[in-house]
Protein backbone atom coordinates (compact mmCIF):
# COMPACT_ATOMS: atom_id res chain seq x y z
CA UNK A 1 0.00 0.00 0.00
CA UNK A 2 1.14 3.52 -0.70
CA UNK A 3 1.40 6.12 2.04
CA UNK A 4 -1.84 7.74 0.84
CA UNK A 5 -3.68 4.42 0.85
CA UNK A 6 -2.47 3.63 4.37
CA UNK A 7 -3.42 7.09 5.57
CA UNK A 8 -6.89 6.79 4.09
CA UNK A 9 -7.41 3.32 5.53
CA UNK A 10 -6.34 4.41 9.02
CA UNK A 11 -8.51 7.52 8.95
CA UNK A 12 -11.47 5.36 7.88
CA UNK A 13 -10.84 2.92 10.75
CA UNK A 14 -10.46 5.71 13.30
CA UNK A 15 -13.58 7.45 12.08
CA UNK A 16 -15.80 4.39 11.72
CA UNK A 17 -14.62 2.01 14.42
CA UNK A 18 -13.22 4.48 16.96
CA UNK A 19 -15.74 7.27 16.30
CA UNK A 20 -13.07 9.98 15.85
CA UNK A 21 -14.50 13.29 14.70
CA UNK A 22 -12.42 15.22 12.14
CA UNK A 23 -9.13 13.45 12.84
CA UNK A 24 -6.03 15.50 12.01
CA UNK A 25 -2.72 13.90 11.07
CA UNK A 26 -0.84 15.76 13.81
CA UNK A 27 -3.50 15.35 16.51
CA UNK A 28 -2.29 13.77 19.73
CA UNK A 29 -4.43 10.64 19.76
CA UNK A 30 -4.89 10.58 23.52
CA UNK A 31 -5.41 14.27 24.19
CA UNK A 32 -7.55 15.08 21.16
CA UNK A 33 -9.56 11.86 20.85
CA UNK A 34 -9.38 10.05 24.21
CA UNK A 35 -7.42 7.17 22.62
CA UNK A 36 -6.25 4.86 25.42
CA UNK A 37 -4.32 1.62 25.93
CA UNK A 38 -7.40 -0.47 25.14
CA UNK A 39 -7.81 1.38 21.84
CA UNK A 40 -4.11 0.89 21.04
CA UNK A 41 -4.45 -2.88 21.33
CA UNK A 42 -7.64 -2.85 19.27
CA UNK A 43 -5.98 -0.74 16.58
CA UNK A 44 -3.05 -3.16 16.37
CA UNK A 45 -5.55 -5.96 15.67
CA UNK A 46 -7.05 -3.91 12.86
CA UNK A 47 -3.60 -3.14 11.44
CA UNK A 48 -2.90 -6.88 11.34
CA UNK A 49 -6.11 -7.43 9.37
CA UNK A 50 -5.22 -4.53 7.06
CA UNK A 51 -1.75 -5.91 6.35
CA UNK A 52 -2.78 -9.55 6.24
CA UNK A 53 -0.10 -10.77 8.63
CA UNK A 54 0.38 -11.05 12.40
CA UNK A 55 2.71 -8.69 14.20
CA UNK A 56 5.48 -9.97 16.42
CA UNK A 57 5.56 -9.03 20.08
CA UNK A 58 8.54 -6.77 19.37
CA UNK A 59 6.68 -4.99 16.57
CA UNK A 60 3.69 -4.47 18.84
CA UNK A 61 5.88 -3.03 21.58
CA UNK A 62 7.35 -0.55 19.09
CA UNK A 63 3.80 0.77 18.54
CA UNK A 64 3.64 2.03 22.12
CA UNK A 65 5.66 5.10 21.04
CA UNK A 66 2.95 6.19 18.61
CA UNK A 67 1.32 9.54 19.44
CA UNK A 68 -0.29 10.78 16.19
CA UNK A 69 -1.98 9.45 13.05
CA UNK A 70 1.17 10.42 11.18
CA UNK A 71 3.09 8.12 13.54
CA UNK A 72 0.61 5.29 12.80
CA UNK A 73 1.12 5.69 9.05
CA UNK A 74 4.92 5.75 9.41
CA UNK A 75 4.74 2.66 11.66
CA UNK A 76 2.73 0.72 9.05
CA UNK A 77 5.07 1.82 6.25
CA UNK A 78 8.01 0.54 8.31
CA UNK A 79 6.22 -2.78 8.93
CA UNK A 80 5.68 -3.19 5.19
CA UNK A 81 9.30 -2.32 4.44
CA UNK A 82 10.71 -4.73 7.00
CA UNK A 83 8.50 -7.60 5.74
CA UNK A 84 9.38 -6.92 2.09
CA UNK A 85 13.12 -6.65 2.67
Amino acid at each position, binding site marked *: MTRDEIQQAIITILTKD*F*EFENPGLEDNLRDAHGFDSIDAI*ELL*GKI*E*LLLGFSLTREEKEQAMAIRTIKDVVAYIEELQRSRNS
Partner: protein
Amino acid sequence: MKRRVVITACSAITPIGYGKDEIIQSLRSGRSGVSPLRDDGLLSKHIHSRVFGSVDYPMEYGFKRQYTKTMGPVAFYACQVAKDVLAQSGLDQEFITSGRLGVAFGSTHGSPTVQRDIYKTFFSDLDAKFSSIGAVDYLRSMVHTTAVNISRMFGITGRIIASSTACTTSSQSIGFGYEMIKYGMQDAMLCGGADEYDTTTVAVFDNLLACSVDYNDTPSCTPRPFDAGRDGLVVGEGGGAVLLEEYEAARRRGATILGELVGFGCNNNGGDLILPNLEGITATLRLALDDAALSPGEVDFVSAHATATKMGDVIEAQAIDAVYGKGPLVSGLKSYMGHTMGTCGVIELILTLYMMEQGFVAPTLNLEEVDERCRMLRHTRELTETPVRTAAIQNFAFGGVNTCLLVRDGRTAQG
Protein backbone atom coordinates in the same frame (compact mmCIF):
# COMPACT_ATOMS: atom_id res chain seq x y z
CA MET B 1 -20.23 2.78 64.95
CA LYS B 2 -23.68 1.99 63.54
CA ARG B 3 -25.28 4.48 61.19
CA ARG B 4 -28.72 4.58 59.59
CA VAL B 5 -28.85 3.86 55.86
CA VAL B 6 -31.45 5.37 53.54
CA ILE B 7 -32.35 4.93 49.89
CA THR B 8 -32.33 8.23 48.01
CA ALA B 9 -32.71 7.13 44.38
CA CYS B 10 -33.73 4.07 42.39
CA SER B 11 -34.21 2.98 38.81
CA ALA B 12 -35.13 -0.27 37.08
CA ILE B 13 -35.26 -1.63 33.55
CA THR B 14 -37.70 -4.54 33.72
CA PRO B 15 -39.83 -6.73 31.47
CA ILE B 16 -42.85 -4.73 32.71
CA GLY B 17 -41.38 -1.33 31.91
CA TYR B 18 -38.58 1.13 32.44
CA GLY B 19 -39.02 3.78 35.09
CA LYS B 20 -41.46 4.35 37.90
CA ASP B 21 -44.61 5.31 36.00
CA GLU B 22 -44.55 2.36 33.57
CA ILE B 23 -43.76 -0.13 36.30
CA ILE B 24 -46.49 1.10 38.64
CA GLN B 25 -48.98 1.04 35.76
CA SER B 26 -48.04 -2.59 35.02
CA LEU B 27 -48.35 -3.59 38.68
CA ARG B 28 -51.72 -1.89 39.02
CA SER B 29 -53.08 -3.34 35.79
CA GLY B 30 -51.65 -6.83 36.26
CA ARG B 31 -49.66 -6.71 33.02
CA SER B 32 -47.20 -9.55 32.50
CA GLY B 33 -43.81 -9.02 30.88
CA VAL B 34 -43.36 -12.65 29.86
CA SER B 35 -43.04 -13.21 26.09
CA PRO B 36 -42.23 -16.06 23.72
CA LEU B 37 -38.57 -17.15 23.77
CA ARG B 38 -36.62 -15.55 20.92
CA ASP B 39 -34.65 -17.61 18.41
CA ASP B 40 -30.98 -17.22 19.31
CA GLY B 41 -29.70 -19.36 16.45
CA LEU B 42 -27.99 -21.72 18.88
CA LEU B 43 -29.73 -23.13 21.95
CA SER B 44 -33.30 -21.93 21.74
CA LYS B 45 -34.51 -24.68 19.41
CA HIS B 46 -33.44 -27.34 21.93
CA ILE B 47 -35.09 -25.72 24.95
CA HIS B 48 -38.48 -27.00 26.07
CA SER B 49 -39.45 -23.82 27.88
CA ARG B 50 -40.54 -21.32 25.21
CA VAL B 51 -41.07 -18.27 27.43
CA PHE B 52 -38.84 -15.46 28.70
CA GLY B 53 -39.25 -12.28 30.74
CA SER B 54 -38.03 -9.94 28.02
CA VAL B 55 -37.15 -6.28 27.85
CA ASP B 56 -38.75 -5.97 24.44
CA TYR B 57 -39.02 -2.19 24.17
CA PRO B 58 -36.26 -0.09 22.60
CA MET B 59 -33.72 1.53 24.92
CA GLU B 60 -31.81 4.65 23.89
CA TYR B 61 -28.59 4.93 25.84
CA GLY B 62 -26.53 7.61 24.16
CA PHE B 63 -23.29 6.43 25.78
CA LYS B 64 -20.06 7.46 24.06
CA ARG B 65 -17.79 4.88 22.46
CA GLN B 66 -15.13 5.81 25.02
CA TYR B 67 -17.33 3.88 27.46
CA THR B 68 -19.21 1.40 25.28
CA LYS B 69 -16.02 -0.26 24.04
CA THR B 70 -15.75 -2.18 27.33
CA MET B 71 -19.48 -2.86 27.71
CA GLY B 72 -21.50 -5.96 26.84
CA PRO B 73 -25.32 -5.81 26.88
CA VAL B 74 -25.37 -6.39 30.65
CA ALA B 75 -23.26 -3.29 31.27
CA PHE B 76 -25.63 -1.16 29.18
CA TYR B 77 -28.44 -2.05 31.59
CA ALA B 78 -26.15 -1.45 34.56
CA CYS B 79 -24.77 1.89 33.42
CA GLN B 80 -28.22 3.19 32.42
CA VAL B 81 -29.77 2.54 35.84
CA ALA B 82 -26.61 3.87 37.51
CA LYS B 83 -26.85 7.03 35.42
CA ASP B 84 -30.51 7.38 36.41
CA VAL B 85 -29.88 7.06 40.14
CA LEU B 86 -26.94 9.46 40.15
CA ALA B 87 -29.02 12.05 38.27
CA GLN B 88 -32.04 11.44 40.52
CA SER B 89 -29.95 11.68 43.70
CA GLY B 90 -28.60 15.14 42.93
CA LEU B 91 -25.19 14.20 44.35
CA ASP B 92 -22.51 16.55 43.08
CA GLN B 93 -19.53 15.44 41.01
CA GLU B 94 -17.10 16.26 43.80
CA PHE B 95 -18.77 13.74 46.11
CA ILE B 96 -19.20 11.12 43.37
CA THR B 97 -15.45 11.11 42.68
CA SER B 98 -14.36 11.65 46.30
CA GLY B 99 -13.85 8.01 47.25
CA ARG B 100 -16.70 8.24 49.75
CA LEU B 101 -19.10 6.67 47.23
CA GLY B 102 -18.59 3.00 46.36
CA VAL B 103 -20.22 0.55 43.97
CA ALA B 104 -21.75 -2.81 44.86
CA PHE B 105 -23.08 -4.23 41.64
CA GLY B 106 -23.12 -7.63 39.99
CA SER B 107 -24.51 -10.01 37.43
CA THR B 108 -24.91 -13.76 37.28
CA HIS B 109 -21.98 -14.32 34.96
CA GLY B 110 -20.93 -11.12 33.23
CA SER B 111 -21.99 -11.01 29.60
CA PRO B 112 -22.90 -14.41 28.13
CA THR B 113 -23.44 -12.76 24.74
CA VAL B 114 -19.80 -11.71 24.60
CA GLN B 115 -18.64 -15.04 26.03
CA ARG B 116 -20.57 -16.84 23.32
CA ASP B 117 -18.79 -14.79 20.64
CA ILE B 118 -15.42 -15.66 22.17
CA TYR B 119 -16.27 -19.38 22.14
CA LYS B 120 -17.42 -19.15 18.54
CA THR B 121 -13.89 -18.00 17.73
CA PHE B 122 -12.33 -20.71 19.87
CA PHE B 123 -14.20 -23.39 17.96
CA SER B 124 -13.49 -21.98 14.51
CA ASP B 125 -10.37 -22.46 12.31
CA LEU B 126 -8.19 -20.94 14.93
CA ASP B 127 -5.03 -19.47 13.49
CA ALA B 128 -6.53 -17.02 11.05
CA LYS B 129 -9.27 -15.93 13.42
CA PHE B 130 -7.40 -15.83 16.68
CA SER B 131 -6.74 -12.11 16.39
CA SER B 132 -10.47 -11.49 16.09
CA ILE B 133 -10.76 -12.12 19.83
CA GLY B 134 -10.77 -8.47 20.80
CA ALA B 135 -8.59 -7.21 23.57
CA VAL B 136 -11.65 -5.80 25.24
CA ASP B 137 -13.69 -8.99 25.16
CA TYR B 138 -12.59 -9.86 28.68
CA LEU B 139 -13.55 -6.43 29.97
CA ARG B 140 -16.96 -6.79 28.34
CA SER B 141 -17.63 -10.28 29.61
CA MET B 142 -15.93 -10.60 33.02
CA VAL B 143 -17.95 -11.17 36.15
CA HIS B 144 -17.35 -7.68 37.57
CA THR B 145 -17.98 -5.93 34.24
CA THR B 146 -21.08 -4.10 35.52
CA ALA B 147 -19.46 -2.68 38.64
CA VAL B 148 -16.30 -1.41 36.95
CA ASN B 149 -18.01 -0.02 33.88
CA ILE B 150 -20.19 2.01 36.26
CA SER B 151 -17.14 3.23 38.18
CA ARG B 152 -15.35 4.11 34.93
CA MET B 153 -18.28 5.94 33.35
CA PHE B 154 -18.99 8.11 36.39
CA GLY B 155 -15.50 8.41 37.86
CA ILE B 156 -16.43 6.65 41.10
CA THR B 157 -13.30 5.94 43.13
CA GLY B 158 -14.63 4.24 46.26
CA ARG B 159 -14.81 0.52 47.00
CA ILE B 160 -15.98 -2.00 44.42
CA ILE B 161 -17.97 -5.03 45.53
CA ALA B 162 -18.92 -7.33 42.67
CA SER B 163 -21.22 -9.93 44.10
CA SER B 164 -22.00 -12.79 41.72
CA THR B 165 -24.19 -15.25 43.56
CA ALA B 166 -26.83 -16.03 40.95
CA CYS B 167 -30.29 -15.08 42.24
CA THR B 168 -28.95 -13.27 45.32
CA THR B 169 -26.45 -11.17 43.35
CA SER B 170 -28.21 -7.84 43.69
CA SER B 171 -29.76 -8.46 47.11
CA GLN B 172 -26.25 -9.22 48.39
CA SER B 173 -24.96 -6.10 46.63
CA ILE B 174 -27.55 -4.03 48.47
CA GLY B 175 -26.93 -5.82 51.75
CA PHE B 176 -23.17 -5.44 51.54
CA GLY B 177 -23.57 -1.80 50.46
CA TYR B 178 -25.82 -1.23 53.47
CA GLU B 179 -23.16 -2.70 55.77
CA MET B 180 -20.44 -0.55 54.16
CA ILE B 181 -22.37 2.56 55.19
CA LYS B 182 -23.76 1.28 58.46
CA TYR B 183 -20.29 0.50 59.77
CA GLY B 184 -18.65 3.63 58.41
CA MET B 185 -16.54 2.21 55.56
CA GLN B 186 -18.26 4.36 52.91
CA ASP B 187 -20.74 7.25 53.09
CA ALA B 188 -22.78 6.17 50.08
CA MET B 189 -23.06 3.10 47.85
CA LEU B 190 -24.51 2.65 44.39
CA CYS B 191 -25.93 -0.88 44.52
CA GLY B 192 -27.77 -3.26 42.26
CA GLY B 193 -27.51 -5.83 39.55
CA ALA B 194 -28.19 -6.60 35.91
CA ASP B 195 -28.56 -9.60 33.66
CA GLU B 196 -28.95 -9.65 29.89
CA TYR B 197 -31.05 -11.86 27.62
CA ASP B 198 -29.44 -15.26 27.91
CA THR B 199 -30.65 -18.65 26.74
CA THR B 200 -27.79 -20.50 28.49
CA THR B 201 -29.48 -19.86 31.82
CA VAL B 202 -32.80 -21.10 30.41
CA ALA B 203 -31.09 -24.26 29.15
CA VAL B 204 -29.59 -24.94 32.58
CA PHE B 205 -32.92 -24.66 34.39
CA ASP B 206 -34.66 -26.48 31.55
CA ASN B 207 -32.32 -29.45 31.98
CA LEU B 208 -33.00 -29.40 35.71
CA LEU B 209 -36.73 -29.64 34.90
CA ALA B 210 -37.16 -26.36 36.79
CA CYS B 211 -38.45 -24.23 33.88
CA SER B 212 -42.07 -23.63 33.00
CA VAL B 213 -43.15 -25.59 29.91
CA ASP B 214 -46.93 -25.93 30.18
CA TYR B 215 -47.77 -22.35 29.23
CA ASN B 216 -45.63 -21.92 26.11
CA ASP B 217 -48.66 -20.79 24.12
CA THR B 218 -49.90 -18.44 26.84
CA PRO B 219 -46.73 -16.78 28.21
CA SER B 220 -48.56 -14.32 30.44
CA CYS B 221 -50.05 -17.26 32.41
CA THR B 222 -46.61 -18.22 33.78
CA PRO B 223 -44.83 -18.14 36.18
CA ARG B 224 -47.47 -18.96 38.80
CA PRO B 225 -45.94 -18.58 42.28
CA PHE B 226 -47.74 -20.54 45.00
CA ASP B 227 -50.39 -21.69 42.50
CA ALA B 228 -51.38 -25.35 42.35
CA GLY B 229 -50.82 -25.26 38.58
CA ARG B 230 -47.29 -23.84 38.68
CA ASP B 231 -44.74 -25.74 36.66
CA GLY B 232 -41.49 -23.91 37.13
CA LEU B 233 -39.66 -20.63 36.70
CA VAL B 234 -39.37 -18.32 33.72
CA VAL B 235 -35.97 -16.73 33.15
CA GLY B 236 -35.94 -12.98 32.62
CA GLU B 237 -33.61 -10.03 32.07
CA GLY B 238 -33.23 -6.48 33.37
CA GLY B 239 -31.28 -4.11 35.54
CA GLY B 240 -31.83 -2.15 38.70
CA ALA B 241 -29.96 0.23 40.97
CA VAL B 242 -30.50 1.98 44.27
CA LEU B 243 -28.44 4.69 45.86
CA LEU B 244 -27.79 4.15 49.56
CA GLU B 245 -26.66 7.02 51.76
CA GLU B 246 -25.91 7.63 55.38
CA TYR B 247 -29.10 9.05 56.87
CA GLU B 248 -27.76 12.25 58.51
CA ALA B 249 -25.82 13.27 55.41
CA ALA B 250 -28.83 12.62 53.19
CA ARG B 251 -31.02 14.71 55.48
CA ARG B 252 -28.51 17.56 55.65
CA ARG B 253 -28.37 17.86 51.89
CA GLY B 254 -32.16 17.71 51.60
CA ALA B 255 -32.25 14.45 49.65
CA THR B 256 -35.58 12.75 49.01
CA ILE B 257 -35.69 9.67 51.21
CA LEU B 258 -37.47 6.83 49.42
CA GLY B 259 -36.95 4.30 52.17
CA GLU B 260 -34.63 3.12 54.90
CA LEU B 261 -32.81 -0.18 54.91
CA VAL B 262 -33.19 -1.35 58.47
CA GLY B 263 -31.97 -4.92 58.31
CA PHE B 264 -30.04 -7.44 56.27
CA GLY B 265 -29.81 -11.16 56.80
CA CYS B 266 -27.50 -13.37 54.79
CA ASN B 267 -26.31 -16.93 55.28
CA ASN B 268 -25.60 -20.16 53.47
CA ASN B 269 -27.30 -23.53 53.74
CA GLY B 270 -23.95 -25.22 54.19
CA GLY B 271 -24.93 -28.23 52.15
CA ASP B 272 -26.79 -28.96 48.94
CA LEU B 273 -26.11 -26.36 46.25
CA ILE B 274 -29.49 -26.64 44.53
CA LEU B 275 -32.27 -27.80 46.83
CA PRO B 276 -34.11 -25.19 48.92
CA ASN B 277 -33.39 -25.53 52.62
CA LEU B 278 -36.04 -24.68 55.21
CA GLU B 279 -33.61 -24.32 58.09
CA GLY B 280 -31.28 -22.01 56.16
CA ILE B 281 -34.04 -19.84 54.76
CA THR B 282 -35.83 -19.52 58.09
CA ALA B 283 -32.57 -18.55 59.77
CA THR B 284 -32.01 -15.80 57.17
CA LEU B 285 -35.40 -14.24 57.78
CA ARG B 286 -34.68 -14.20 61.52
CA LEU B 287 -31.18 -12.80 61.01
CA ALA B 288 -32.66 -9.83 59.16
CA LEU B 289 -35.23 -9.21 61.91
CA ASP B 290 -32.50 -9.40 64.55
CA ASP B 291 -30.32 -6.98 62.58
CA ALA B 292 -33.24 -4.54 62.35
CA ALA B 293 -34.29 -5.15 65.98
CA LEU B 294 -37.83 -5.70 64.69
CA SER B 295 -40.42 -8.19 65.80
CA PRO B 296 -42.17 -10.24 63.07
CA GLY B 297 -45.43 -8.42 63.80
CA GLU B 298 -43.93 -5.14 62.58
CA VAL B 299 -43.51 -6.42 59.01
CA ASP B 300 -46.55 -5.60 56.80
CA PHE B 301 -45.44 -7.09 53.51
CA VAL B 302 -43.21 -9.92 52.31
CA SER B 303 -41.89 -9.90 48.76
CA ALA B 304 -41.28 -13.62 48.46
CA HIS B 305 -38.55 -15.07 46.27
CA ALA B 306 -41.30 -17.34 44.88
CA THR B 307 -39.85 -18.53 41.60
CA ALA B 308 -42.80 -20.90 41.01
CA THR B 309 -40.73 -24.06 41.19
CA LYS B 310 -42.51 -27.04 42.69
CA MET B 311 -40.55 -27.33 45.93
CA GLY B 312 -39.02 -23.86 46.28
CA ASP B 313 -42.37 -22.15 46.88
CA VAL B 314 -43.45 -24.75 49.44
CA ILE B 315 -40.24 -24.46 51.45
CA GLU B 316 -40.41 -20.66 51.35
CA ALA B 317 -44.06 -20.72 52.45
CA GLN B 318 -43.08 -22.91 55.42
CA ALA B 319 -40.28 -20.47 56.34
CA ILE B 320 -42.58 -17.44 56.11
CA ASP B 321 -45.17 -19.26 58.19
CA ALA B 322 -42.59 -20.19 60.82
CA VAL B 323 -41.38 -16.61 61.18
CA TYR B 324 -44.43 -14.47 60.45
CA GLY B 325 -47.51 -16.69 60.54
CA LYS B 326 -50.45 -15.04 58.81
CA GLY B 327 -49.28 -11.50 59.63
CA PRO B 328 -47.92 -9.82 56.51
CA LEU B 329 -49.34 -9.79 53.01
CA VAL B 330 -47.21 -12.00 50.76
CA SER B 331 -46.68 -11.45 47.01
CA GLY B 332 -44.48 -13.18 44.46
CA LEU B 333 -43.45 -10.32 42.19
CA LYS B 334 -41.70 -12.65 39.73
CA SER B 335 -45.20 -13.51 38.55
CA TYR B 336 -45.06 -10.23 36.55
CA MET B 337 -41.76 -10.70 34.76
CA GLY B 338 -40.20 -14.05 35.50
CA HIS B 339 -36.95 -14.52 37.32
CA THR B 340 -34.52 -11.78 36.34
CA MET B 341 -31.73 -13.77 37.97
CA GLY B 342 -29.00 -11.53 39.43
CA THR B 343 -31.33 -8.56 39.14
CA CYS B 344 -34.35 -9.91 40.96
CA GLY B 345 -33.46 -8.64 44.44
CA VAL B 346 -33.00 -5.03 43.43
CA ILE B 347 -36.02 -5.03 41.13
CA GLU B 348 -38.22 -6.51 43.86
CA LEU B 349 -36.90 -3.92 46.34
CA ILE B 350 -37.66 -1.08 43.90
CA LEU B 351 -41.16 -2.41 43.18
CA THR B 352 -41.71 -2.57 46.95
CA LEU B 353 -40.53 1.04 47.37
CA TYR B 354 -42.99 2.13 44.66
CA MET B 355 -45.84 0.26 46.35
CA MET B 356 -44.89 1.76 49.74
CA GLU B 357 -44.94 5.25 48.28
CA GLN B 358 -48.24 4.72 46.49
CA GLY B 359 -49.91 2.77 49.31
CA PHE B 360 -50.81 -0.45 47.55
CA VAL B 361 -49.72 -4.07 47.31
CA ALA B 362 -49.72 -5.79 43.94
CA PRO B 363 -51.18 -9.28 43.93
CA THR B 364 -49.32 -12.40 42.82
CA LEU B 365 -50.29 -12.82 39.18
CA ASN B 366 -51.69 -16.16 38.02
CA LEU B 367 -52.45 -17.22 41.58
CA GLU B 368 -55.78 -18.85 40.85
CA GLU B 369 -55.76 -21.82 43.19
CA VAL B 370 -53.27 -21.69 46.03
CA ASP B 371 -51.29 -24.91 46.46
CA GLU B 372 -52.63 -26.53 49.62
CA ARG B 373 -49.09 -26.70 51.01
CA CYS B 374 -48.81 -22.90 50.73
CA ARG B 375 -52.26 -21.99 52.07
CA MET B 376 -51.06 -21.01 55.55
CA LEU B 377 -49.90 -17.59 54.28
CA ARG B 378 -51.82 -14.33 53.77
CA HIS B 379 -51.45 -14.25 49.99
CA THR B 380 -52.17 -11.06 48.08
CA ARG B 381 -54.92 -12.26 45.73
CA GLU B 382 -56.03 -8.87 44.42
CA LEU B 383 -54.73 -5.32 44.17
CA THR B 384 -54.83 -4.10 47.77
CA GLU B 385 -54.83 -0.43 48.71
CA THR B 386 -53.05 -0.42 52.05
CA PRO B 387 -50.18 1.43 53.68
CA VAL B 388 -46.96 -0.58 53.89
CA ARG B 389 -44.47 0.65 56.48
CA THR B 390 -42.03 -2.23 56.71
CA ALA B 391 -41.34 -4.89 54.11
CA ALA B 392 -39.11 -7.92 53.70
CA ILE B 393 -37.50 -8.75 50.35
CA GLN B 394 -36.42 -12.39 50.28
CA ASN B 395 -34.09 -14.00 47.77
CA PHE B 396 -32.43 -17.41 47.62
CA ALA B 397 -29.82 -18.66 45.20
CA PHE B 398 -28.16 -21.72 43.75
CA GLY B 399 -25.19 -22.40 45.95
CA GLY B 400 -27.37 -22.24 49.03
CA VAL B 401 -27.05 -18.47 49.50
CA ASN B 402 -29.99 -16.78 51.22
CA THR B 403 -30.70 -13.07 51.75
CA CYS B 404 -33.39 -10.97 53.35
CA LEU B 405 -33.56 -7.16 53.18
CA LEU B 406 -35.85 -5.25 55.51
CA VAL B 407 -36.95 -1.82 54.31
CA ARG B 408 -39.02 0.89 55.95
CA ASP B 409 -41.01 3.39 53.91
CA GLY B 410 -39.63 6.86 53.22
CA ARG B 411 -42.19 8.83 55.23
CA THR B 412 -41.56 6.80 58.38
CA ALA B 413 -37.80 7.00 57.81
CA GLN B 414 -37.92 10.79 57.64
CA GLY B 415 -39.78 10.81 60.95
